[in-house]
Each structure stands twice: as structure tokens, then as C-alpha cells.
């Protein structure tokens, strides 16, 4: 098969918040850049983000980056790298102000500044009281941000390849990254995008779970491509379950609802979070709130005929506040829960939301992997940012609003690093191996010819049910062990998926089969990493690692204060140290402590 070849200075895969922010850096610097995306840029899932983006602007309450850093490290349960965290929180004001200058329609305070609201886990004075740090455009912050970034890229003349799906990473025998193969959905043609630099910004993989706030397209393609080409995945056992997905539908209700004063109640109407988190209550960190909810439900205090959810109550807020600050939530609640939150509380359950782990990077956006005894050696030509990457700023649990910040800071930083490397002549166009497209062509060809195999939707459902049951909000030793066996069986079926549609044109059956190849890598990485981590930390809480005097909250710093690295080949696990040292001398390391809210 003849494969067309295109050559660029840089290719960016993904046009969500991270990809678009990186693209701006490259386009404005004049690099010849291709941005590939499965969907029109403004359809990327960043569009669904609701609550806000964190920055210690201090527009409504006193604030500073030291407090933001403390909250983020504590939120991460000390698994976050403190150099990357310092970098992110110190850049926050700059990137949010830039976004405002691009035209982002932030809500405003009475004196005309960016409006900020409280959010879970963000506090004043090292945990004392909630702080107003989340910069918001009503409850449509992601939509406003994604459109503003796209619009700025239109101004910068960025070249997009819309509805092109990247298939595989191209590496040479030294392991350097030379670009990607991609399929144009409209024609079914496979091309090679040959580039000096490749940036992955493909977003999360929340669709490995049955119940998820993520879009259909969130299939972890970048993570899967990286894994298949030999790059390890970092900390994949850590998945955030958002406390408030609409029961039964999965659609998200932002934490901003609680930031505006919303309260979680059990069947007797009790504000149960007061028992679990006396200081921050409903605004405690997400993992804490989700577990408290599941505990209430498990102990019979859930609501509804099946006692399987709790209620999010904002009926005490004025209808004006709801219409002004939470109009989108009201629509969602009416559409997907059938209740108007002005009149009645919204039924909610913890729902898979965010992938803390991903492709390992440093704070410059360079992808790093172990080599010759050094755990963090940059992979030449390869960069990543956003939810697909692990910098690692979120560690074992991300704080709300820190992801949109991550997209801006590390999207920009990855872009800046590429521009620097380009200008200093460090990036060259390395020759393509003759077999550069063979892996991708073989995958496509297998789908053309496969018979007697398994149906894509059956395998996907089996994967989702396995993940939901065996690696959920609470984890159990036996279930994890069985989960590993099950997911490896499902992975075998994923190798023989078959499709009936053989058309070249816009073949969505083929797209879904190709996406499943990525999802299954993520699912294996998650289950195997989770089974292996024999402690509780952040979002990973196991029954055999309970809260004891020796191990508060079940955390075992002596043995497990380290990042997991999972390799697809042989399902091998490796570990690397957490960086507890900040980037500069302006701040002391945040010392290990028990996490309470």
C-alpha cells in the first residue's frame, strides 16, 4: 500500500486545551506545524469543563502561590513532583491573564476583575478555610476557554488536520520519535506525518470505566500509542472519581455547585460531610468526598428506592444565583436527572472522571523514560501535555480546576521547549525507517480481513464492567487480583475484534475498533499498577491498607512513596522516586504529613 508522507517542523496530536495552547506557541514562533484532531477542535472534551481554572489572583480573597502549592501537594497525597507543582502554580496567573487577553469571557467581580469561586481542596493559609481561587465563566469555563484558544489559533493561522486520527507513534532504532501515522476519516487513507518534534495532547481515557463523565472520544489514544511503542506509563492506578455525576447518566455536575454553597445530603437529609471533613466539609478533596458518599450508600443511608445515590442540594440558593452562576448545571439537571435544582435536589453518585497518570514528562513537557540507570531521560523529539501526560502535578489525586491550569501551563511549556530546541538546532529531521507505517497498515489490514472474532462493543463493555467492578472508588485485594486475570482475558479478545463495515469512507466502526486498542492498554496499565500498589494513597484506597497509627490513612511512605511505571511489553512494572524538592529555593519542600480536611 502506498503511504503519503508529509513533513513538518512539529506535529501536535490533539486540539483540546493542551494541544491548542501548545499550537499557539509554535504557530506564533513561525514553526511549520500540523495539528491533528479526531474532531473539530471546539468539540474536544475540554469543552465540557465547567467549574473553573485555578490561579492565585487574589481577586476576591487574599491568596498566593505558596498556598496553592501546599494545597496541590497535599491534594496529591505527596505523590506529585514538587518541582513541576511549583512551576505550575507560579505560572498560573500569567497563563490565565493571557487567556483573558485572548478574549476569554470570564465572569467579573464588581470592580471588573476576573470572578473567582471556592473549589474543593483549595484553601487559605495552608488548609484553614476555603479560598476563592477558581477563575470561572459561569459553569461553562471549559467551553469559554476552548473556544477562546481556538479563536486565537485562527488568528495565528494554525494548520489543522480535522477528523484525522493518529494511529501509531513512529520511532527509530535509537528510540527517537519521528512523528506519527494517521488516518483521514473521510477517505480512509493512511499518511505519515514526519516531524522534528511530536507533541501528544490527546486527553484522557475515562471511557475504560462503565460510568464516566468523559466523552465517547476520550479513549486514551496518545497513552495507548506511547505504551505500544515502548514508553512506560506513570501512576496509572490513580483515577479520580468525581463525587457528583448525575446518577444513572454519568454527566458531570461541577464541584462549583458546592463552591457556590451546594450541600450533599443522605437519606435522612443530614449534611454528612461534616462528619468526614470538619473543616472543609463539602469542599474537601474529591477522593475524600467520593469515599464518604460511597460509605454513606454502603451503610444504608443512600437515597431513592434502591438507596444507591445521595442528593446535591442547592434549593437554599437564590434562583438568581443559580441562573447566573450555574445556568448550565440547571440545564443538565433538567435534561439528565429530570429535576430543576431550584426546586429539588439533584441525585448524584461518584463517577469516573480524570486520569491522574499518563505519559511521563518533566515540567518542560519533554517525555522522559528510564535509560542507563537514570529514571528521567528525555525521549528525543517527543513531548506531551494535558490529561494524557503525567508531569506529575496531580500525583494520587487532582484538585478541581488544576487540570485546566495544567493544560495551559504545560501546553505552553511544551510549546516553548519545542521552539527553544528548534532554534538551538537540537531538533533535526531524522530519516524515517522503511517500515515506518507497517504497524499501522497491519492493524488496518487485520480489521479488513478478521473473521470469527469478537464484536467491538462486546469487548469494550466487558472491559468497562471489569474496570468498574475491580478498580473502583474502593479497592479490594481479591477483586484486584481477579481483575488482573479478567482484563488480560479481555485484552486477548481485543486482539481479534471484527467489524462488518468495510467502507473506506468515514468508517466509524473501524475508528471504534482502533480506539479500543488504546483503551485496552490503559485498562491493563490501571489494573496491573493498582494490584501492585499495596498501600492506600489519594484516589487509590484498598481494604488491606487501612488507616492505622503506623500508616495514617493506609499510606506507606517507607515502601510506596514512588511513581509506578508500567510497560506494555510483558506487563512489566518499574518504579521511580517522587521529586520532593521544589524547583527553586524560594520555597521549602512541603513536608510529608497525614492528609485531613
Amino acid at each position: 500500500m502506498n503511504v503519503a508522507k508529509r513533513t513538518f517542523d512539529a506535529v501536535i496530536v490533539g486540539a483540546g486545551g493542551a494541544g491548542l495552547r501548545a499550537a499557539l506557541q509554535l504557530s506564533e514562533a513561525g514553526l511549520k506545524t500540523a495539528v491533528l484532531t479526531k474532531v473539530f477542535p471546539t468539540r474536544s472534551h475540554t469543552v465540557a469543563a465547567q467549574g473553573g481554572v485555578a490561579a492565585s489572583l487574589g481577586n476576591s480573597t487574599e491568596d498566593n502561590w505558596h498556598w496553592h502549592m501546599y494545597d496541590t501537594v497535599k491534594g496529591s497525597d505527596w505523590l506529585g513532583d514538587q518541582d513541576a507543582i511549583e512551576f505550575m502554580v507560579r505560572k498560573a496567573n500569567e497563563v490565565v491573564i493571557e487567556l483573558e487577553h485572548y478574549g476569554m469571557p470570564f465572569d467579573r467581580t464588581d470592580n471588573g476583575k476576573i470572578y473567582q469561586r471556592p473549589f474543593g481542596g483549595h484553601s487559605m493559609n495552608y488548609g484553614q478555610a476555603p479560598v476563592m481561587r477558581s477563575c470561572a465563566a459561569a459553569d461553562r469555563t471549559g467551553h469559554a476557554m476552548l473556544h477562546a484558544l481556538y479563536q486565537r489559533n485562527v488568528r495565528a493561522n494554525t494548520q489543522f488536520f480535522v477528523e484525522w486520527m493518529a494511529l501509531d507513534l513512529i520511532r527509530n532504532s535509537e528510540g527517537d520519535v519521528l512523528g506519527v501515522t494517521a488516518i483521514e476519516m473521510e477517505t480512509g487513507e493512511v499518511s505519515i506525518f514526519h516531524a522534528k518534534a511530536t507533541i501528544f495532547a490527546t486527553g484522557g481515557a475515562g471511557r475504560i470505566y462503565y460510568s464516566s463523565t468523559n466523552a465517547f472520544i476520550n479513549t486514551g489514544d496518545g497513552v495507548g500509542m506511547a505504551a505500544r511503542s515502548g514508553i512506560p506509563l506513570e501512576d496509572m492506578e490513580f483515577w479520580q472519581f468525581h463525587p457528583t455525576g448525575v446518577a444513572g447518566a454519568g454527566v458531570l455536575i461541577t464541584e462549583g455547585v458546592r463552591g457556590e454553597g451546594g450541600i450533599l445530603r443522605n437519606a435522612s437529609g443530614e449534611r454528612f460531610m461534616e462528619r468526614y471533613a470538619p473543616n472543609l466539609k463539602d469542599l474537601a478533596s474529591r477522593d475524600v468526598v467520593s469515599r464518604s458518599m460511597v460509605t454513606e450508600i454502603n451503610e444504608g443511608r443512600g437515597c431513592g428506592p434502591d438507596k444507591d445515590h445521595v442528593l446535591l442540594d442547592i434549593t437554599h440558593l437564590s434562583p438568581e444565583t443559580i441562573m447566573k452562576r450555574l445556568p448550565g448545571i440547571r440545564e443538565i439537571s433538567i435534561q439528565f436527572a429530570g429535576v430543576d435544582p431550584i426546586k429539588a435536589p439533584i441525585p448524584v453518585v461518584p463517577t469516573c472522571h480524570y486520569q491522574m497518570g499518563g505519559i511521563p514528562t518533566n515540567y518542560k513537557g519533554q517525555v522522559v523514560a528510564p535509560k542507563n540507570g537514570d529514571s528521567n531521560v528525555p525521549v528525543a523529539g517527543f513531548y506531551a501535555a494535558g490529561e494524557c501526560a503525567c508531569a506529575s502535578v496531580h500525583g494520587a489525586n487532582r484538585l478541581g480546576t488544576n487540570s485546566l491550569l495544567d493544560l495551559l501551563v504545560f501546553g505552553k511549556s511544551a510549546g516553548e521547549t519545542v521552539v527553544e530546541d528548534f532554534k538551538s538546532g537540537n531538533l533535526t529531521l531524522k530519516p524515517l525507517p522503511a517500515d515506518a507505517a507497517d504497524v499501522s497498515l497491519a492493524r488496518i489490514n487485520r480489521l479488513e480481513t478478521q473473521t470469527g472474532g469478537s464484536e467491538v462493543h462486546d469487548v469494550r463493555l466487558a472491559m468497562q464492567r471489569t474496570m468498574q467492578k475491580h478498580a473502583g472508588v474502593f479497592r479490594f485485594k481479591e477483586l484486584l487480583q481477579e481483575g488482573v486475570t479478567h482484563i488480560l482475558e479481555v485484552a486477548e479478545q481485543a486482539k481479534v475484534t471484527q467489524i462488518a463495515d468495510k467502507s473506506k469512507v468515514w468508517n466509524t466502526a473501524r475508528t471504534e475498533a482502533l480506539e479500543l486498542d488504546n483503551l485496552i492498554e490503559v485498562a491493563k496499565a490501571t489494573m496491573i499498577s493498582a494490584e501492585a500498589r499495596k498501600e492506600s494513597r489519594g484516589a487509590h484506597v484498598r481494604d488491606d491498607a487501612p488507616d492505622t497509627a503506623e500508616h495514617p490513612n493506609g499510606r506507606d511512605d517507607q515502601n510506596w512513596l514512588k511513581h509506578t511505571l508500567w510497560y506494555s511489553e510483558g506487563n512489566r512494572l518499574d518504579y521511580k522516586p517522587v521529586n520532593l524538592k521544589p524547583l527553586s529555593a524560594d520555597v521549602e519542600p512541603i513536608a510529608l504529613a497525614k492528609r485531613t480536611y
Partner: protein
Amino acid sequence: MSKRTVQFKIYRYDPDKDAQPYMQDISVELEASDKKLLDAIVRLKTKDDSLSFRRSCREGVCGSDAMNINGKNGLACLTDIDKLAQPITLRPLPGLPVIRDLIVDMTQFFKQYHSIKPYLVNNDPAPERERLQTPEDREELNGLYECILCACCSTSCPSFWWNPDKFVGPAGLLAAYRFLADTRDQATNERLDNLEDPYRLFRCHTIMNCVDVCPKSLNPTRAIGKIKDMMVRRAV
């Protein structure tokens, strides 16, 4: 809702094998949890994997799954399946070239969006902090910035059907007014010049189809009226 079977009539066309488009009669048994039209066609796709449509967020914010549902444009993910008369007739958005089944070529739609220079223009040196804007000035953008570019409006607009290359269409004009209404934007004159043309703005005959179909309850007609007002005010 329990299990029930629903009947569909769906526009099918695969240029790789069909000489002509045709309407397919097909039914599917839904699970109790299937509530929206999108749930139903995703379910249908497990029976016939060749049915092609775009979808992503499943919550009405990405703008992917606009289609013509029983004669009216809308988003599959925000349409209650049980409220639709059967057989549920699904067609691609009218007025744009069909690529396959329910997937249309949106090139012309986005070309018009891009033609209004959809980005903030402010040539003052960037201040160190945010540009200030009063809450009242910010409120002017409500009802404008929320557009999801789904094209339900433009593809229900007769003026856009006849002149997709010349008339900007409701979505593009709504976006044009979003920037005209932004106190931070300095390109008012250029923006109005760009629309001062017998077709680009003035082909709108206030038929209001656009308002009727917008899944986000936006009002392009009102925005268009405001642009016309600005033109008039500028002329005197």
C-alpha cells in the same frame, strides 16, 4: 422506562457502495437506561456497525451530533427518545453536502464562521493584569458566547441554503456580534465593513428558523438585528 422497541427511518448513503441514497427502515430494542435519541442510535449501531454519525460529549456541549430529526434540526443527545413520533425519521442536516449517512461536510459552515474574524482584536499593549470589564458589560456576551457551532441554525435557514458561499448565516453572525458586543474588542468598524454587503448580513429575512432550532436557546435573529442597528447608527 422499561425495554421497548422503536422504529426508525434513516437516511443511508455510503459513496463507497451506494449509487443513490436511500431510506432504511430499521427497529431496535432499547434498554431501560436508553433515554436520549443518541442512546438509541448508539444501541442501533451495535446491530449495524455501518451506521455513521458524529458524536462526542453526549451532553449538548460539543456540537457533534446535530441532525434532522422528524423534520427538525436538533442534537441527538438532547432529544428525548420517548417523545418522538415513530417511525423516527433521521436525515443529515439539510443544505450541506452529505459525506456518508448522517455525516455532512461542514466546510462551508466553518468557512463562514472564520470569515467574520472570530477572535478578539485589541492592539493596545497587553497590560500586566486582566483587562477590566464591568459585570454589566460582561453580561452583554451572555446568549452569544455559548454557541457550540452545531450548525442546526444555519442549516435550517433558507437564505443559507440558497447562498451558503455568500450569506454568513446565523451562527457566523451570532459570533460576529459576540465580538462587536465585547467592550474589550477594538475592531468594530472593520467588523461592520466586513458585513456591509448585500449578501453577507442582509440576506437574513428574519424568518426565525434559526431561533426555533437552536439547542442552546440562543437567538441569532436578535444578534443580527443588533448588527443591523449598529450599521444604521454608524451611517447617520
